[in-house]
């Protein structure tokens, strides 16, 4: 189910809110879990089994890790001592959790990709029969990349002594399946929401803030991301492009992915607040970054901090010398790219980001020259925008062709793409997206003080966004496919 759909907005959400607030506090987690499973199973009920399996494995792994401590064999569970000794059984439970999650993720996300390239390699070596192999055509379950990372964070946090183990399976199932953040994040780490699963407050101010976030999210998605997406889709699907069209398509996608994903995150944070949860911030005006390092502290913060804490630091981070730091950065970003999907485009995107981060660090270490401040932000924005091309293009040849069309003098002077995209509505939306991305108030600050004029703007956004929504048949978010 998609947030920006009629069935979610006007059937699912009213039912959830009604039953949630009518239900006694003790039963709210169970209720939320049931609704979240219905939300997840809407597209394909079989996916529910997969999520339940992952949840059960991690819950019991967490329990095994907790019980390795003698204090936890009684009634209540305590947080393990941070940095304290762990038994072999506890380590095995952690390995079981990580192996099962990574296997599941690997199979559903990368099996066909790997099988295809193995077959191609065998064909290249002369075994022509390999080309006849029938692949499984594994269907990617929605949100698997997000909930497996969340699920793994539980076992790791409990093992490290960063969070208290949960006694109730239902509370844990609620954490994993919580519908606002289930399909496309933010990736809430267990330690961030552990206490909220047991105790959370419900206030009118919190609910109002939630509605405000939700309205901003729907506005970003429907009024900014979708029109930009129409320009980007037209440009990226076109065989011949003029230089101007190519640049327009690139910037349109740059704004589309930002407003689509940050819109989803705002809606998720808003829904969480309506239900009493406070989720972490996922975006912090990333296109205003002064460097790529700065960009990754502002873009998809929940993923970048997850990768930092659970991958970069365990690999040694920057503690093992400069050379190792550069390698770690590239490896983490390569894996981060691959996390988005089984495609060479994502590998290239991740690898390019990793290399750029490493070069940036190298530059800062050995070179005193810095570009003028006024140039840093445009340069970063330009680089990030260009790197979205392999991310968006259908395959590598398309990406290469698209890069080629960015050069002046390439392609026709007047193309059909221009005719299809240079409508006032689309151009105004694109310009507005740019202005808001660079100069607009960040959602988190905008919703802090809710004066009457802001409430009016938010209600208008909600209404106008919903009306626009009803004229569009399907509104999937970009990150749903990851």
């Amino acid at each position, binding site marked *: 189910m998609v947030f920006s759909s009629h069935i979610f907005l*006007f059937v699912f959400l009213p039912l959830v809110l009604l039953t949630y607030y009518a239900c006694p506090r003790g039963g709210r987690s169970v209720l939320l879990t049931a609704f979240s499973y219905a939300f997840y199973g*809407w*597209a394909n009920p079989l996916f529910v089994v997969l999520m339940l399996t992952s949840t059960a494995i991690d819950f019991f792994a967490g329990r095994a890790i907790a019980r390795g401590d003698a204090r936890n064999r009684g009634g209540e569970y305590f947080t393990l001592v941070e940095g304290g000794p762990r038994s072999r059984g506890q380590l095995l439970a952690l390995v079981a959790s990580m192996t099962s999650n990574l296997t599941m993720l690997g199979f559903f996300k990368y099996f066909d990709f790997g099988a295809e390239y193995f077959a191609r390699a065998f064909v290249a070596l002369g075994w022509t029969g390999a080309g006849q192999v029938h692949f499984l055509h594994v269907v990617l379950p929605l949100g698997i990349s997000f909930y497996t990372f969340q699920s793994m964070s539980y076992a790791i946090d409990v093992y490290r002594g960063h969070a208290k183990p949960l006694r109730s399976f239902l509370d844990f199932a609620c954490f994993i399946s919580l519908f606002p953040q289930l399909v496309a994040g933010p990736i809430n780490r267990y330690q961030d929401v552990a*206490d909220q699963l047991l105790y959370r407050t419900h206030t009118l*101010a919190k609910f109002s803030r939630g509605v405000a976030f939700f309205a901003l999210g729907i506005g970003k998605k429907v009024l900014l991301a979708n029109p930009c997406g129409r320009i980007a889709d037209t440009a990226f699907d076109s065989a011949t492009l003029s230089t101007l069209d190519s640049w327009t398509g690139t910037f349109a996608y740059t704004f589309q992915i930002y407003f689509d994903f940050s819109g989803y995150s705002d809606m998720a944070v808003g829904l969480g607040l309506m239900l009493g949860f406070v989720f972490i911030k996922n975006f912090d005006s990333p296109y205003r970054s002064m460097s790529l390092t700065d960009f990754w502290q502002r873009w998809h913060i929940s993923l970048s901090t997850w990768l930092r804490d659970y991958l970069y630091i365990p690999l040694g981070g920057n503690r093992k010398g400069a050379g190792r730091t550069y390698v770690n950065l590239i490896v983490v970003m390569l894996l981060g790219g691959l996390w988005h999907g089984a495609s060479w485009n994502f590998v290239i995107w991740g690898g390019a980001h990793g290399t750029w981060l490493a070069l940036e660090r190298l530059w800062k270490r050995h070179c005193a020259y810095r570009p003028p401040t006024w140039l840093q932000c445009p340069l970063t924005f330009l680089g990030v925008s260009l790197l979205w091309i392999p991310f968006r293009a259908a395959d590598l040849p398309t990406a290469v062709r698209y890069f080629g069309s960015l050069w002046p003098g390439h392609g026709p002077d007047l193309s059909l793409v221009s005719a299809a995209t240079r409508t006032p509505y689309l151009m105004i939306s694109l310009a507005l997206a740019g202005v808001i991305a660079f100069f607009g108030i960040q959602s988190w600050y905008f919703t802090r003080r*809710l004066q009457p004029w802001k*409430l009016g703007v938010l*209600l208008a956004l*909600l209404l106008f966004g919903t009306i626009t929504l009803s004229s569009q048949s399907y509104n999937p978010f970009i990150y749903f496919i990851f």
Partner: protein
Amino acid sequence: MIGRGERMAMEEIGLTEIRKAHAVVFVGLFLAFLYGVLLWDIPVLRNLAGIAAGKAPAAATAPPATAIRTASVIPAWSNSIFAENRKVLDWIKATEHQVDERSPFVRATQPAVQSLLVACGEGGTDARRQGWLAVLPAKPAFHDAPGRGTNQT
């Protein structure tokens, strides 16, 4: 009682400043909007549930614009999308005489109807030839533009 996790998260999100009266009106309007549309849609949803269960469509129970809009949100159950959409499409066709072409709402829902037709194998240029779809745009969509398989200029 506020837990540690919530306290930490609240520190990041910051306190919300809103007057109680404003919050009551704001939340009230939001909920009225959600539940208002839900109540408005109940006859349509009941009708669709009936169609899915094999009953004859009760065409007069809802305004056609609502029906068209609701048709676009039929869940894409695995492998059954065709059959479900087919039923809804049949129902929409049965109510075609009620479609007011001049209604801005009907015009706004055209993409939804078109995608439904495509899902049922009746999409594209052929769909526009059907009488009841006269409300669809006369101007060719991008998919019909030159280079996309037709000879329109």
